[in-house]
């Protein structure tokens, strides 16, 4: 699952460029047609409704959501109010009242990232990303087996023209 539509908004491009230390553009906001930073495609995560590395304020099942992984009630981060169903989605794994949860399957660490630019991403674009799995391979590391997984995402504009092709490789250490 990825973003369905990725609108390239001026304020978002501004915030992203600021985080990379860029000076604000003249007039304060990027204008329609301005090129976004070279790595901006990665911010499509904001528009992926199921992006796993974004916390969701906890919602009781009764108010929506369907199924989802269940974590032990009363476990770390899994507090369930009396009389409520278990959470519709797994609770966030970061720290709160306790230090957080060890999690599996949130993508491992980022090993490689490659972008091919057919043209720059521009403010005002509405991109449609589509992601497919690429190669998968394993390597023996110093502290266990490393599993590499490749994902390829094509970003097309509304006319269906390819804008950016992104290839990312993540690595996960297998418990030895």
């Amino acid at each position, binding site marked *: 699952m990825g973003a369905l539509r990725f609108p390239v908004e001026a304020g978002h491009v501004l*915030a992203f460029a600021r*985080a990379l*230390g860029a000076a604000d553009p003249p007039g304060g906001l990027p204008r329609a047609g301005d090129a976004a930073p070279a790595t901006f495609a*990665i911010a499509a995560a904001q528009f992926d409704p199921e992006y796993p590395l974004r916390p969701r304020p906890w919602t009781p099942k009764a108010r929506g959501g369907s199924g989802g992984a269940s974590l032990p009630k009363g476990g770390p981060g899994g507090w369930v109010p009396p009389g409520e169903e278990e959470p519709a989605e797994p609770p966030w794994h970061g*720290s709160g009242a306790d*230090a957080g949860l060890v999690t599996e399957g949130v993508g491992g660490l*980022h090993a490689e990232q*490659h972008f091919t630019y057919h043209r*720059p991403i521009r403010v005002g674009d509405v991109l449609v990303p589509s992601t497919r799995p690429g190669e998968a391979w394993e390597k023996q590391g110093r502290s266990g087996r490393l599993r590499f997984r490749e994902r390829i995402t094509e970003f097309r504009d509304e006319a269906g023209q390819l804008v950016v092709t992104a290839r990312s490789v993540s690595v996960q250490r297998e418990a030895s």
Partner: protein
Amino acid sequence: VTAPASRRGAAALRADELAVGQTFETVVVTDLKRTQIVQYAGASGDYNPLHTDEVYATMVAGYPSVFAHGMLTMGLTGQAIAGLVGTESLLRFGVRFTAQVWPGDTLTVRTSVIRIDEADGGPVAEFSVSTMALSATDGEGREVMSGYAQARLAA
């Protein structure tokens, strides 16, 4: 090595201003703050607590502290390359993340011209890219990211 600071905000380099073997160095962050990592998390949408939650990173995940998103390092590096050739001219940019970037690190991007080819639509330059971190705590330097970039230059 060409002085990089003077290039900030300067126009993109033209083909006749580049030669194979040239190397540019750009300091892209000095004493990286945890707050800049948080700023990047918010802008990119990647809220992995390994990067923003010191309690989680140290007590649950077992790291000495939070560390920067690889994509923050790549993004900062991309800004340095864009400062040389302009974002508009980029054709390819790819990296491998080789070591973690910690709060307090100072990052320097080294961009070297590997080749320049004449192509339809103008000369195309290939760069090797290496980002080095200097640690505030032990003063030790190390490569944290390496890769390549390709750009179509203004003739």
